[in-house]
């Protein structure tokens, strides 16, 4: 999960993101950030999530669990 959090931090332009952080609370959280996260998940984890999936995830850790559950076996 650490690598995943580091990738989120780069996209959100902050020093670090923790598992309990609510992504929606970051000032940089907008449609561009959502698309950048979707693209990162597709390229690096082979997972395609909808914008709504991201908006519904309560924290970075919850999103990570969602990514893990969708990862192709």
């Amino acid at each position: 999960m650490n690598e995943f959090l580091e990738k989120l931090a780069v996209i959100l332009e902050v020093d670090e993101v923790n598992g309990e952080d609510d992504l929606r609370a970051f000032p940089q959280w907008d449609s561009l950030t959502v698309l950048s996260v979707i693209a990162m998940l597709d390229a690096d984890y082979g997972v395609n999530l909808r914008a709504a999936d991201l908006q519904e995830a309560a924290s970075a850790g919850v999103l990570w669990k969602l990514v893990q559950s969708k990862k192709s076996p």
Partner: protein
Amino acid sequence: MRGSVVKFTFRRKRISGMLAVVPARERTFLEEMSNFNFPESRSLKLKEVMGYDRRRLVEPGVCVSDLAVFGLRHLFEGGWLQPDEIDGLFLITQTPDYLMPPTSNVIQGRLGLKQDAYCLDISQGCAGFVIGLIQAFSLLEQEGVRKVVLINADVLSRKTSPKDRNIYPLVGDAAAITVIERDAADSVIHASVKMDGTRSEVLMIPAGGLRLPSSPETAVLEDVGDKNLRAKDHLFMDGSAVFNFVQTEVPPLIEDTLKNANVAVDAVDYFLCHQPNRFMLQKLADKMKVPHARMPNNVVERFGNSSGATIPIAVIINLAEQVKGAGCLACLAGFGVGMTWSSMLMRLGGLSFCELVDYA
């Protein structure tokens, strides 16, 4: 329901010329940024990531037939095409002059084209260059048909909200005119198409048809929760859904086409895709493991995304000398409204014209 891919094979057909008509009026992202309901720093970030810079927009009132008539007159005057040679005229657009009559007939009438020119409007958009080529090649199977003109034209800027950062900064207006005829060489062209109407609401203009006629209510700007203001009369695009659609559906379709042709990815000189923005094309190239240099992505930054006209514009601004000469093996791919996704493998070469003109 998912089934097998619709496959097409055509023999002895070629593209003999391409012309793009773009409005002379240019707008820059920096000029328009203040319209958006977002901090400047975020809009600048969007510009950097997506590759937005300049785009071409029609003046108020300019219609698809105006761009098309201008372009065809340019070809007649230059001696590249004779009016009487046009046996078929397909217009692919999402922004016709009228609900009825067909805009292709309006063009025919304004130019005085012959009565046995087979004119047809086709409601397609970003996948429409390949769809139009399929229609043109099919018509050319008829012995009496010698030359078909394909026009991909849209003025979508007139249907987008200037306060919608989701769509406004990427749209451009243009018409592309492609001439298709028989090939003396024994050439083979492969194509594949898929459509999925269950996702038709991902890209749509909700009002203005008969289901929801335009009214004062449909002209009201609304914020549906993402800080973008648009009316039901405006083009709506679910950007992240389009992104996922392209990443998951387009690579397998292109693979199918290449497999049918027994051609490897590395043997294709250029992947000439519809141009939604630089970001999506780079991600598509990465997914297909194609070097960015073999998948041009520089149309949106100079002209904007003009729907079905972007593949011809990509050819004209990047490969004009090559396709007028010995040519190249090109894989074309379009994707968008419908949803529709299409790909085609063909040689482009020996074109008699391949240029871009300003409409003023």
